[in-house]
């Protein structure tokens, strides 16, 4: 900062000019629509006839809408499972790849990243085969284990639909976090491990007492990424269950989609999105602050 003091003003002006196309694009297609969603949430509107002003009516309705709150709860469960089965599992895998079988790390990383590259629609369609009640692989596996009682239509039953979707999410996004953690774990200096090895530390000790504290920044960043991603989730749920059966796997995005473009309750759909965004902001901020205070990110 101090280095640019000499020609501060002209630099700021140049910076502003270079940034202006990005500002304009984001303002027009991200910021303005978000504010507009707040405005639309004050109306009831079918998308065609004149909007009818509702005041806080949509918010009152939303507050008492159990489908919305359950959907939001599922988004949080997705986030929780992402922390365990994507972030934490990825950190374990990254440790193994870097510290235990480094010769194979590149090839493993490649295959873990395959689902990250492919469209969620393709992945969802493939998993519909895996979960097929008649010939699906999941049922076949339980049959082979002699657990015929566990065979079921995983995506079609309200008891299992949501869990089945969450399992697919874990498989799909894991690779991104493996990649991010491999880079972080690699950056931990060898000497730190050597010191621990002299004390006779095994992999388990080294993982928990060296790796995790040393990659705290990456843990915090990736957790934030996972939580934000979980609140955004749409395509996999849409293609696997579309929130069904009977809202059993509904998340906020699929509920908004149904309200806005199925029932044409555009105002209420805007309310759902706007409220979700406010809660996302508050949630992300709280988690960030908690992690900071808990010292996960610090070097202690």
């Amino acid at each position, binding site marked *: *900062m101090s280095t*640019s003091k000499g020609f501060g003003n*002209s*630099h*700021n002006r*140049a*910076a502003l000019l*270079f*940034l202006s*196309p*990005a500002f304009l*694009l*984001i303002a*027009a*297609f*991200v910021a*303005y*629509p*978000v504010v507009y969603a707040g405005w639309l949430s004050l109306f009831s509107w079918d998308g065609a006839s004149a909007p009818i002003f509702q005041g806080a009516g949509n918010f009152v309705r939303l507050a008492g809408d159990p489908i919305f709150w359950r959907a939001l709860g599922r988004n949080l469960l997705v986030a929780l499972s992402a922390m365990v089965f994507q972030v934490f599992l990825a950190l374990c*895998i990254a440790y*193994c790849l870097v510290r235990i079988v480094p010769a194979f790390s590149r090839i*493993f990383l490649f295959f*873990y*990243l*395959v689902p990250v*590259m*492919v*469209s*969620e*629609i*393709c992945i969802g*369609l*493939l*998993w519909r*085969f895996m979960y097929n009640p008649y010939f699906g*692989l999941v049922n076949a596996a339980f049959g082979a284990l002699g657990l015929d009682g566990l065979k079921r239509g995983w995506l079609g039953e309200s008891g299992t639909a949501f869990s089945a979707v969450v399992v697919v999410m874990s*498989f799909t996004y894991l*690779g991104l976090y493996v*990649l*991010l953690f491999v*880079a972080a774990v690699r950056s931990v200096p060898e000497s730190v*491990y050597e010191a621990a090895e002299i004390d006779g530390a095994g*992999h388990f000790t080294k993982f928990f007492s060296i790796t995790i504290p040393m990659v705290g920044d*990456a843990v915090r*960043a990736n957790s*934030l*990424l996972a939580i934000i991603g979980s609140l*955004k989730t749409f*395509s996999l749920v849409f*293609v696997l269950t579309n929130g069904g059966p009977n809202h059993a796997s509904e998340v*906020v*995005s699929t509920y908004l*989609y149904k309200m*806005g473009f199925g029932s044409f309750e*555009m105002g209420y*759909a*805007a309310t759902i*999105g706007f409220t*979700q965004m406010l809660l*996302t902001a508050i949630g992300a901020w709280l988690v960030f602050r908690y992690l900071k205070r808990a010292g996960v990110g610090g070097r202690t």
Partner: protein
Amino acid sequence: MGAVRRWTVTNTVVLVLLTLHVLLVVFPFIWMIYSTFKTNKEFMRSVWSLPTSFSLDAYVGAWSGGALGGYAVNSLLIMAGATIITVAVATLAGYALAVYRPRWMPAVELGLTAAMAIPAYVALVPLVVMLRGAGLLDTHMGVVLPTAAFNVPVTIFIMQAFFNTLPRELFDAARMDGASEWSIFARVALPIARPAMFTAAIVNMIWVWNDFLFPVVFINSPARKTLPVGLTDFVGEHITNYPVMLAAILIAAIAPLVLFIFFERQITAALLGGAVKE
């Protein structure tokens, strides 16, 4: 780094566990690939076994039976448009943040991070209203502009991370020679930035190609649908011939996979550059 370690039981156990796990992760893709070589009769007889014959009928059926080719062209156009806009805009912005480091940079970074955290569906209803007003609903451009806007923040961070690696003397020297700020960018920065722009373009291509929410909502005409959206229609229509269905899924998945196979290094670098920023 460090001494070569002895291969132990631990290594073997870890290797076996990781192999089993990664097989589980990629199994649906492997199964998809070999199943497309089956006939429907063979598929129905045993769903999970390897093909006994080598039939390309499924690909012929998928390509001729549906509008996949048209969907692919639409995806390609939207991908090209959104990627070009995003990378151009983000290169300028990333350069400005890395090289000028304006006083108000922390505010900009916070704003970009916030924009990254906003779920696209929050903007869905307003965007439909806006696009309809501008006559862009049900057009390629109507998908391109919002898609580009939502991908700009993370792409800025990718480009900023690249420009941060360049020594600032590079630009100061040109400045001493009296070059204008624009010509420093165009003549000095842009040529060096080409590989980084390429990298950012590759990941954007994959994101846009796979995107579903905006295309499914903004486009109604079958003739303008993208591949993932068209694929869901296609699957509904071909529910009885599974190898054809799988071949269609494979056709939709192949472009990003080919990009990944050829540009693995660039893609992983871009994902690291954009995400490490947090």
